[in-house]
């Protein structure tokens, strides 16, 4: 009896494990930063080098931090949706990595600028503090300065509904997110 049951159970167990493994995304790397305070960084703004985007800029309010670059095709993809969110009143801060300042300014003036301000980081120095591997990546920052969520790949309405809205509803205190109704979270 055992000589049939044991191999069968082993086979099924390994089968389930492998089947789940097949469905996993090997590019998905869980972020070490979710649940932690925003990293220390300070960058000049893309559009105005005198203006500083830093840890202090992000403190005290709910916001998005979006990693982008003009070399990044997928960033172009999500740009329309970012503009939509910005119009609804979501404060989005940019982290412009591995880029050329003139090209970045040109991009913003041609396609529209969804960012309150974008930090200019050509060497991805601040990006490393944020655990950035590429672009686009989007972080959701809580009022208390905690990273609530990190999304790798373009931000779409579907991802927004599925991953970001529930977190916003959970973490927005009264008056923290005046944009909530306008972005689908009545």
């Amino acid at each position, binding site marked *: 009896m055992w000589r049939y049951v044991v191999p069968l159970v082993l086979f099924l167990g390994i089968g389930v494990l492998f089947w789940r493994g097949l469905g996993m995304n090997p*590019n998905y790397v869980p972020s*070490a*930063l979710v649940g932690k305070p925003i990293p220390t960084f300070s960058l000049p703004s893309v559009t105005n080098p005198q203006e500083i985007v830093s840890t202090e800029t992000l403190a005290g309010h709910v916001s998005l931090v979006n990693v982008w670059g003009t070399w990044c095709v997928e960033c172009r993809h999500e740009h329309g949706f970012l503009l939509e969110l910005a119009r609804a009143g979501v404060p989005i801060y940019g982290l412009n990595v591995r880029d050329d300042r003139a090209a970045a300014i040109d991009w913003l003036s041609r396609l529209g600028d969804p960012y309150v301000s974008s930090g200019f980081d050509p060497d*991805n120095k601040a990006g490393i503090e944020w*655990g950035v591997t590429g672009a686009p990546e989007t972080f959701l920052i809580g009022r208390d300065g905690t990273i609530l969520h990190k999304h790798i790949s373009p931000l779409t309405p579907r991802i927004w509904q599925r991953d970001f809205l529930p977190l916003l509803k959970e973490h927005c205190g009264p008056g923290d997110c005046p944009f909530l109704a306008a972005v689908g979270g009545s």
Partner: protein
Amino acid sequence: MKALALVSAVWLALASCAFGALAQEGFDDPALNERYRALISEIRCPKCLNESIAESKAPVAAELRREIRRLMGEGASDDEIKEFLASRYGEFVLYRPPLTLKTFAVWAAPFALFVVGAFVFWRILAARLRQPLDDEPLDEGPPS
């Protein structure tokens, strides 16, 4: 044949160029340089599938190598550098993650599998030994 030789010559030349570019970054001090080489081959590139940052051509790998050189230049130990990387990119980037409750299965699995294998081997061997010896001579060829 000649074409093949030419292609391989060009390929080899290019390959040594690529290697040369990476070999240039590092430290003049041979001991420090060796530590650097060993360290970067133990850090997994967070963007690429199963390449160390020593092998990878991804921009993030070059940036992480740069950070490691900077930290080493500031006198950081290997453990401090690994901690720096793991706190930003997760333990995913360490090819030899520390033994914690979360990574216990990864460390224990080879030993557990070895014990299971040895047990099965021993059971089969014991069963075979209990079988009576078969004294009939082997078939030594077609009947003459």
